[in-house]
């Protein structure tokens, strides 16, 4: 299996452990989530004053978000709010920490690895490299970057976007007295760490400062409330689409079927092509919210089924 559903997890009272593995040996870490097969993980790492690491690279894509403190990384000084995306094989400069720092460190492909090197690996996909201070170098934008969209009062700073999967990493904030009255789920996994503030979801209750979740696809979350404001770091593992609804009791299987039903209605050609390979639901998958949608004329027309006097056309045949 991949990473389990970890939600909510408030890590502040959990102890740090010595980091004895390649990666950031000599620091201290706690695991926020871990893929039990690949070793991909999200860690919170504490670098004590005097920490040093030689230049080197990892065999995994790595993301780092500096929560507090500062560190010298090669010729750059990273301060709180610094975000870096290091494509696998990126040689990061020598690290020196004078006063101490804490960071979220994410290995996206495997357990932590480290090879001492001052040169990038020849196969590195260097164009994907990002290094920026998210607090100072990126503007807040409306959270309505996708549609259907979140309610006004949720804003994001886009830090990294993967054009292949449309996965993205971002800062987000919720304004004081934020509210959104719907239940959401996505096709993607979603991850968040609360840098400051408390927000509330109808399933899980309060998520305070230091609160974290790794949520696999199709799991209900929301409605949403935030009383005093929240600042958080978030990521998805692929494109994020907001499937909103108002049935509190659906499970991930039902939600996934509903998502497939959306495809059936909205992308009929694609759906038919996909379904032709042994996953055939000739009348569309069940949709807990609109169980009779298959009777709708427009849906039947899209799928070449008889409507009125029309005999329909052979299923899947292109016009």
């Amino acid at each position, binding site marked *: 299996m991949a990473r389990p559903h970890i939600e909510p997890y408030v890590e502040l009272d959990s102890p740090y452990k010595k980091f004895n593995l390649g990666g950031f040996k000599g620091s201290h870490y706690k695991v926020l989530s871990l893929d039990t097969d690949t070793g991909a993980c999200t860690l919170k790492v504490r670098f004590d004053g005097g920490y040093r690491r030689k230049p080197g690279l990892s*065999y995994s894509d790595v993301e780092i978000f500096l929560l507090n403190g500062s560190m010298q990384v090669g010729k750059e000084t990273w301060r709180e709010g610094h975000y870096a995306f290091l494509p696998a094989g990126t040689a990061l400069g020598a690290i020196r920490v004078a006063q101490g720092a804490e960071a979220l460190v994410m290995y996206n492909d495997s357990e932590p690895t480290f090879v001492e090197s001052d040169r990038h690996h020849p196969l590195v996909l260097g164009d994907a490299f990002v290094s920026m201070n998210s607090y100072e170098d990126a503007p807040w934008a409306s959270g309505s970057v996708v549609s259907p969209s979140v309610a006004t009062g949720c804003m994001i700073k886009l830090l990294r976007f993967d054009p292949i999967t449309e996965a993205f990493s971002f800062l987000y904030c919720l304004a004081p007295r934020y509210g959104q009255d719907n239940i959401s789920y996505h096709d993607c996994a979603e991850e968040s760490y609360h840098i400051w503030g408390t927000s509330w979801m109808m399933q899980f*209750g309060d998520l305070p400062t230091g609160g974290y979740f790794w949520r696999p696809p199709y799991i209900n979350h929301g409605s949403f409330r935030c009383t005093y404001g929240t600042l958080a770091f978030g990521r998805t593992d692929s494109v994020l689409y907001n499937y909103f609804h108002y049935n509190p009791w659906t499970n991930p299987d039902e939600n996934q079927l509903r998502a497939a039903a959306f495809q059936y209605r909205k992308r009929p050609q694609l759906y038919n092509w996909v379904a032709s390979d042994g996953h055939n639901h000739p009348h569309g998958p069940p949709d807990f919210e609109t169980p009779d949608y298959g009777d709708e004329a427009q849906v039947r027309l899209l799928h070449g089924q008889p409507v009125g006097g029309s005999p329909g056309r052979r299923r899947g045949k292109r016009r």
Partner: protein
Amino acid sequence: MAKRVQDLKPARKADAQAWMKENVAEQKKRYAAIVKEQEELGPEREKWVAGFLKIIQTKGFNVTGDVRRIIKPGEIPKKPKGMKKHQVVF
């Protein structure tokens, strides 16, 4: 298929195996604790759900952004028969 740096990762050594074993075991415990904690929230969650179902019939349901739709009483979903607990962690 083009090779990627990830493809060249050496096999996991003993120290990494031990690291995985230790942290997978701890994560299992953490997961169990989360499930227990969330199950204990059950009675409170029922009140939250009741409040939500009331709000979407009065103030409305956020269809997208700030666009709301008042949900009619006949559209309100019913708790599935036989559902003993409302599972939220999967």
